[in-house]
C-alpha cells in the first residue's frame, strides 16, 4: 500500500501531473487537436525523461484532454474532442442563453466526480482482473485483442469492413522490421532505418495530427469564429448532491465502457446521454435546450471512462482506448511491460499510475476553473495560423522520438495516407490500436500455433475445452456474424413479424 503514496513522496511528480493536465486541457479544448494527438506529442517531448515523470505527464494529458473538449463544445459549439460531442447538445444552448459560466462549472465538477468514481473502479477491479488474467492462455489473449479491434472497427465510422481494414493495416505496419524471434527481415526493403520497425510515435502523430490538419484545411471559408461572454464560476455542492444519482449511474457505465478494449470516453458519453434522456422524465429544461442533466451524464461518463481504460491496460496489457494504447507505447519505450506481471515486477509504477489518476482528477477542478478567458482567446485563433503550427509540432514530435529525420518522413507519409483514408470514411483510430497490439497479437498467435502443433482441429479442441476460450470465441463469432448480410436478414424477419 505504501507504493500508492509514491506520488506524494516525490512531490515533483505532482508538478509533472499538473503540467500534463494543463497541456492536455488546452490541447483538448482546441478543435483540431485531439487527446490522442496531445498524448503522442507529450510522449515525444518526454522521451528522454525518466519513466515516472513521463508517465505522470501523459496521464495528466489524458485526464485534462478528455475534460478540455467540453470547453469548446460549450463556448463554440465545436467539440474539442469526440468525447465532448454529447456535451455540445445542451452546453451550447446554455451558452447562447448567457449561462456559459454555469455550464463550464457543471462540466468541471462532473468531470472530477466521474473521474474519481472511475478511479475507484480502477482500484477495485484491476486486482480482480489480474487474478483472472493469469488464467488466460495465449489463444485467449489473441482473441481478446482481436475483440478490441472488432469493437473499435464496428463502433467508429459507418463501415465495419473499412474499420477492420484499418485495424489490420495497423497490425501489418506493426510487424514491419526484423522479427525478434527469428531475425527475419520483413518489408524492410534493405532500409536500415526500418529494421528496428516503424516508430509508433511517427504513425500516431501522422495519422492523428498531420492528417487532421490536411483534412481541416480543405475549406476554410466555412469556419466562423464566435466570441463569448463569460461571468464568474462557482461550483455548487447542492447541485452535485442533486444530480449525484445520475452522476453515479453514468460514471459506472462510463467506467465499464472504458474498460472494454477499443472503446473510450466518446462512446461512453453518447451512451450515457441517451440513458439520461430515457431515465430523466421531467428535466427542468428540456434536453437539447440547456438541460443540466445533458451535461452531467456525458461529462461524468467520459472522465470515468479514463479510469476504466486503465483496468485492462494494467491487468492484461491491452488498452481500453487509443490514449491507453499510447501509454502502453510510452511504457514500452521506457522498458516497462504492462500486464498481469507489472504489479509484481514494478509495483511502484503500477501504483503510481493509479495514484496519478486519483490525484489528477482532484487537481483537475482548480485547473479546470482557471484560464477560461485565456482559452477563449486561443480558441479564436484562425485556422490558417493554427494548422501550420500543428504541423510544425508534429514534425518536432516525430523527430524528437529518435533524433532521426526518417521518422519525420514516416510521419508525413502516414499523415497523407491518413488524409485519404479519412476522405473515404476509413476510420484511423483502429490503425493505432492494431499497431500497438501487433506484437501482442503476433506473439500469442505464434504461441497458439506452436501449442496446437499447427493443427486446426487441435486448436478448436483446445478452444472448446476451455470455458473462457469458448466465451471469447462465441463473442467474436457473434460480432462477425452481425456484420454480415445475416444481420439484414434478421432485421427483415423482425420487421415482417
Amino acid at each position: 500500500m505504501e507504493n500508492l503514496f509514491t506520488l506524494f513522496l516525490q512531490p515533483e511528480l505532482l508538478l509533472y501531473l499538473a503540467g500534463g493536465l494543463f497541456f492536455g486541457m488546452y490541447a483538448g479544448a482546441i478543435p483540431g487537436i485531439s487527446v490522442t494527438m496531445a498524448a503522442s506529442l507529450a510522449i515525444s517531448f518526454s522521451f528522454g525523461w525518466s519513466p515516472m515523470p513521463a508517465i505522470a505527464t501523459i496521464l495528466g494529458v489524458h485526464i485534462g484532454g478528455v475534460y478540455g473538449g467540453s470547453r469548446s463544445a460549450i463556448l463554440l459549439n465545436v467539440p474539442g474532442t469526440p468525447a465532448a460531442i454529447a456535451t455540445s447538445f445542451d452546453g451550447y444552448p446554455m451558452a447562447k442563453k448567457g449561462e456559459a459560466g454555469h455550464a463550464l462549472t457543471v462540466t468541471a465538477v462532473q468531470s472530477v466526480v466521474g473521474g474519481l468514481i472511475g478511479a475507484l473502479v480502477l482500484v477495485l477491479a484491476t486486482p480482480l482482473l489480474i487474478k483472472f488474467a493469469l488464467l488466460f492462455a495465449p489463444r485467449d489473449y489473441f482473441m481478446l485483442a482481436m475483440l478490441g479491434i472488432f469493437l473499435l472497427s464496428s463502433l467508429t465510422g459507418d463501415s465495419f469492413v473499412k474499420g477492420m481494414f484499418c485495424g489490420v493495416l495497423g497490425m501489418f505496419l506493426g510487424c514491419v522490421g526484423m522479427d525478434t524471434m527469428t531475425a527475419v527481415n520483413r518489408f524492410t526493403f534493405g532500409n536500415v532505418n526500418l529494421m528496428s520497425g516503424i516508430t509508433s510515435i511517427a504513425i500516431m502523430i501522422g495519422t492523428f495530427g498531420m492528417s487532421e490538419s490536411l483534412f481541416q484545411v480543405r475549406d476554410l471559408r466555412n469556419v466562423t469564429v464566435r466570441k463569448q461572454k463569460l461571468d464568474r464560476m462557482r461550483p455548487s455542492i447542492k447541485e452535485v448532491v442533486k444530480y449525484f444519482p445520475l452522476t453515479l449511474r453514468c460514471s459506472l457505465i462510463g467506467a465499464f465502457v472504458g474498460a472494454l478494449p477499443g472503446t473510450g470516453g466518446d462512446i461512453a458519453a453518447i451512451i450515457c446521454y441517451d440513458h439520461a434522456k430515457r431515465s430523466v422524465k421531467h428535466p427542468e429544461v428540456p434536453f437539447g435546450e440547456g438541460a443540466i442533466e445533458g451535461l452531467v451524464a456525458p461529462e461524468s461518463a467520459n472522465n470515468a471512462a479514463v479510469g476504466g481504460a486503465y483496468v485492462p491496460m494494467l491487468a492484461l496489457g491491452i488498452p481500453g482506448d487509443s490514449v491507453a494504447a499510447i501509454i502502453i507505447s510510452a511504457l514500452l519505450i521506457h522498458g516497462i511491460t504492462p500486464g498481469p506481471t507489472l504489479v509484481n515486477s514494478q509495483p511502484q509504477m503500477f501504483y503510481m499510475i493509479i495514484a496519478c489518476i486519483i490525484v489528477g482528477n482532484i487537481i483537475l477542478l482548480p485547473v479546470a476553473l482557471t484560464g477560461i478567458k485565456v482559452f477563449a482567446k486561443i480558441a479564436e485563433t484562425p485556422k490558417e495560423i493554427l494548422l501550420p503550427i500543428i504541423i510544425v509540432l508534429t514534425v518536432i514530435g516525430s523527430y524528437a522520438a529518435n533524433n532521426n529525420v526518417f521518422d519525420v518522413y514516416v510521419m508525413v507519409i502516414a499523415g497523407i495516407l491518413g488524409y485519404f483514408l479519412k476522405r473515404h470514411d476509413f476510420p484511423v483510430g483502429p490503425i493505432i490500436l492494431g499497431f500497438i497490439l501487433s506484437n501482442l497479437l503476433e506473439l500469442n498467435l505464434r504461441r497458439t500455433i506452436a501449442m496446437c502443433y499447427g493443427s486446426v482441429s487441435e486448436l478448436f479442441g483446445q478452444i472448446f475445452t476451455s470455458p473462457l476460450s469458448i466465451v471469447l470465441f462465441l463473442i467474436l463469432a457473434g460480432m462477425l456474424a452481425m456484420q454480415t448480410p445475416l444481420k439484414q436478414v434478421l432485421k427483415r424477419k423482425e420487421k415482417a413479424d
Partner: protein
Amino acid sequence: MEIGTSCEVKGLSMEKKTFKIREYFFCILVFVLSLIGFLVSVALFREHPEPDSAAVFPTVTTGIMMLTSFIAVLQVRKNCPELTEEEKKADFGGNKVIAAIKEEMPLNSFVLAVSAIAYAVLLNVVGFYVSTALFMAGTITFLRRGKKIKQTLIVTAVSLVVIFLVVEKIFQIMLP
C-alpha cells in the same frame, strides 16, 4: 471559381457527383496495394514455411486486408449517394477526372501536403529553423491568399522563438 475550395457547379456539391469515381479508384488502389503486400508475404512464407514462422502474421494480415478492401470495392455502388434529376443533368464544369481530383484533394490540402513533404526534405538540408520559417511563412501566406503578411511574419518569428525556448532549452531536444 475560387481556388482552394471544393468545386461547386451551379450551387451543387461536386462531392456527390464525383463520389463513385473517387471511391472506386481509392478502394481498387487499396486492394491492389494489399494484393502486392500479400504476394510479398507469400514469397516470404515460401522461404520460411513453418506454421509459426515470421511470415505467418504478415500473410494473415495482408490476406485480411485484401479481403476487406475487396468487399469495400463491392460496397461502393451500394454506398453511392442518390442524385436528384437536376444533379444528374448538371455537368462537371470541365473534365470528370479533373473534377474528381479537385474534390478529392482541394488546393489548400494539396499545397499543405506538398509543403509538408518539402519541409521534411529541407530539414537535413538547411536545418530546422530555416525550413520551419519557410514552411510557416509560406503556408500561412498561401492560406490567407497573400493578406496580412506582416502579421504572418510576426507569428512565424514568435513561434520560432517559443519553440527554441521550450523545445531546446526546457525539453533539451536538439533539433536538426
